[in-house]
C-alpha cells in the first residue's frame, strides 16, 4: 500500500469546517512531567462530549536536545492545538515526530494541529490500513458527538511505519518504538525513553477506565505477560493514572481480561449463545471500572467470536 495515496485519499475525509472557538474549554491544559523530559497530559475518563472536546486519551511528548516527539495527539483538532500550545510553552525544540500508539480516534484526531511542524507521523505497519478502513465512520461519529467542536479534525495516517522496532534519536536521547502483535488493536506500539526508563503504553494499559479489546483478547494477555517482564522505571497508561508500582499496575487489567476469557470459555462450553454470554460474563468486575456499561459487553462479544473457534 502506498502511504501517500492513502494520505491523499484521507484528506477528503477531514471535517472541513473552520473553527474559531474552543481553546478555552481545554484551558488550562495540564501537563505532568512524569520523568525528566517526559510530559503527560492526562485525558478525562468521561465519555466524549462537546464539554471535553474529545480529551479522553493520555497524550504527551518527550523533549530531546534537538527534537520533540509527540506521543498521540488527542481526540480532536482542538485537543491537538492545546497540546501544541503546551509544547510551545515548554520548549523551543521543533516537533520532528508524531508517534500514534494505535488507531483509536481519541488518540489521533489532533494530528492536524501539527501540520505546520511538518513532523513525520509514525505508527504500526498495520495502522494505515486500519485508519483507512475507519476514517469515514470515525469522522461521522466525531461530528455526531462533538458537533462544531469536531472542526479541523482529520484522519492523518503515518508515513513512517514500524514493523518490529524503530529507534529515534531526539538529540542526546534515544527512544524505542516497538510494534506489538494483535492485542488491544492490530496496530499497537509502545514508546520507551531509554534515558529515564519511561514506557508509554498507549492503550495496552487501561487504569480505572474499562479496558477495551478491539484486537484479540488472548493476544492482549500474552502481550501483558511480556510487558510484565520488562524493566521499567516509570510508565504512562493510555487512560487513567495510578500510583501502583510496575509491573503490579498491569494486574487489574490482566485480571479483568483473564476473567472474561475464563467465563466466556465456560459459557461456550455450556452451549450459551453470544447474547447469553454477553449478559452474564464478567459482571463481578463492574464496580472496579469506570465506563463499564459502555465497553464491557463489547469486550465479551469480541472474546466470544474469538474463543468460539478454539
Amino acid at each position, binding site marked *: 500500500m502506498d502511504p501517500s495515496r492513502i494520505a491523499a*485519499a484521507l484528506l477528503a475525509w477531514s471535517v472541513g469546517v473552520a473553527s474559531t472557538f474552543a481553546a478555552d474549554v481545554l484551558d488550562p491544559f495540564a501537563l505532568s512531567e512524569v520523568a525528566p523530559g517526559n510530559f503527560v497530559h492526562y485525558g478525562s475518563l468521561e465519555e466524549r462530549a462537546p464539554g471535553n472536546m474529545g480529551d479522553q486519551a493520555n497524550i504527551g511528548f518527550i523533549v530531546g536536545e534537538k527534537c520533540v516527539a509527540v506521543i498521540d495527539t488527542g481526540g480532536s483538532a482542538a485537543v491537538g492545538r492545546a497540546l501544541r500550545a503546551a509544547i510551545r510553552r515548554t520548549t523551543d525544540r521543533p516537533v520532528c515526530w508524531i508517534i500514534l500508539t494505535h488507531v483509536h480516534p481519541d488518540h489521533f484526531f489532533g494530528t492536524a494541529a501539527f501540520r505546520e511542524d511538518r513532523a513525520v507521523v509514525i505508527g504500526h505497519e*498495520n495502522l494505515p490500513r486500519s485508519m483507512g*478502513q475507519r476514517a469515514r*465512520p470515525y469522522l*461521522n461519529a466525531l*461530528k455526531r458527538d462533538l458537533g462544531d467542536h469536531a472542526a479541523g479534525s482529520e484522519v492523518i495516517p503515518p508515513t513512517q511505519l514500524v514493523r518490529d522496532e524503530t529507534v529515534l534519536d531526539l538529540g542526546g536521547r534515544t527512544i524505542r518504538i516497538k510494534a506489538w502483535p494483535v492485542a488491544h488493536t492490530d496496530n499497537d506500539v509502545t514508546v520507551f525513553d531509554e534515558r529515564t526508563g519511561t514506557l508509554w503504553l498507549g492503550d495496552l494499559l487501561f487504569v480505572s477506565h474499562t479496558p477495551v479489546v478491539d484486537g484479540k483478547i488472548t493476544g492482549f494477555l500474552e502481550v501483558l505477560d511480556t510487558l510484565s517482564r520488562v524493566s521499567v522505571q516509570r510508565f504512562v497508561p493510555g487512560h487513567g493514572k495510578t500510583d501502583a508500582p510496575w509491573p503490579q499496575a498491569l494486574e487489574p487489567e490482566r485480571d479483568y481480561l483473564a476473567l472474561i476469557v475464563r467465563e466466556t470459555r465456560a459459557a*461456550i462450553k*455450556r452451549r450459551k449463545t453470544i447474547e447469553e454470554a454477553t449478559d452474564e460474563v464478567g459482571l463481578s468486575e463492574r464496580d472496579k471500572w469506570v465506563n463499564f456499561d459502555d465497553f464491557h459487553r*463489547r469486550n465479551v462479544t*469480541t472474546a466470544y467470536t474469538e474463543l468460539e473457534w478454539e
Partner: protein
Amino acid sequence: MNPLCKGLLAGLLLVLPLGAAVANEKAEPDPAKSQYWPPIRQMMFGEREILDGKDVVRVYLSTRADDASTVPVAVKAQIDQTPGQYIKQVYLIVERNPSPAAGIFQFTPDSGRAQVETRLRFEDFSFVRAIAETNDGKLYMASRWVKAAGGCSAPGDKNRMPANLVGTMKFRFADETVEAHKPALVQLMIRHPNESALASDFDDTRTPQFVRQVKVTYAGKTIMSADVDFSISDNPSFRFYFVPEKEGELQAIVEDTHDKRYVHREIIVEGVPLPGG
C-alpha cells in the same frame, strides 16, 4: 453475487452519498419517516403492499449495540411452518449500510421453524427491517432501531486468518442430543474474513472476498438457504432450526465472491451426543 443485492448496492451508492447524512439521532426516529427506506423498498418490493408484521415476524437485537462489527440479531417467525402456510423468505435489511440487503433467507416447511440468528455489521445508526414473505405472497415487516456505527468498515481479521482456514466450518448444536421429529436448533459457523467492500476503499483492484450464498440441507432436503452480503460479520454465523429423523446428514454448502465453494457435513443420530460445547 445475488443480482438483487448487487443492484441494490450500486443503486444506493448513487442515491445516498456515503457519510453525507450525519444526523444527530441520539433518539429513535419514526420508522415510517426514514428517508433511507423508500428507495430500498422501491427497489426490492416495488409497489407491493407491506403489512404490519407483529403477528408474523419479529426481529430481536439490542437497540444499543456494543460492537458495530458484530451485532447479534434474531429474526423469529410468529407462525408455524406448515405445508399449508409458511414463511418462504425473510429479507433482512440494514437500511443505512452501503449494501442494505444483509441477507435473503429461504425456508421450507421442512425448516421446522422460520427463524435465523446471525451477526451484522452496522455502518451507522440504522433501522433494521425484517420482511417475511409467506407462501401466499404476502409481505410482513418488523423494524428495529439500532445505535451502532462504524462496523462495516471495521477490519475483519483477515490479517489474522491463515488462508488454509478460510472456509472451515463447524456445526454447533443448542442441545447435547436431538430427538427425531422435534425441531432442533443448530448454529453453522463459517471461518471466513467476509471482507467488506468498504474495507477495500484503498485497493479497488481486487474484489472483496465475502460469502454470498449458504445452503443447508438435511437428509437431502433444503432446510435453509440464503443469499448474503458483507453486512454479515466476519466468520459468518447462522443459527436455525431443522427437524431431525432417527438419523440423517446435515450438509452446508457455502460459496463466496471469489467463486470458492466450501462443504461441511455431519451425520446426526438421535440420542448421540453432538458438538456444541
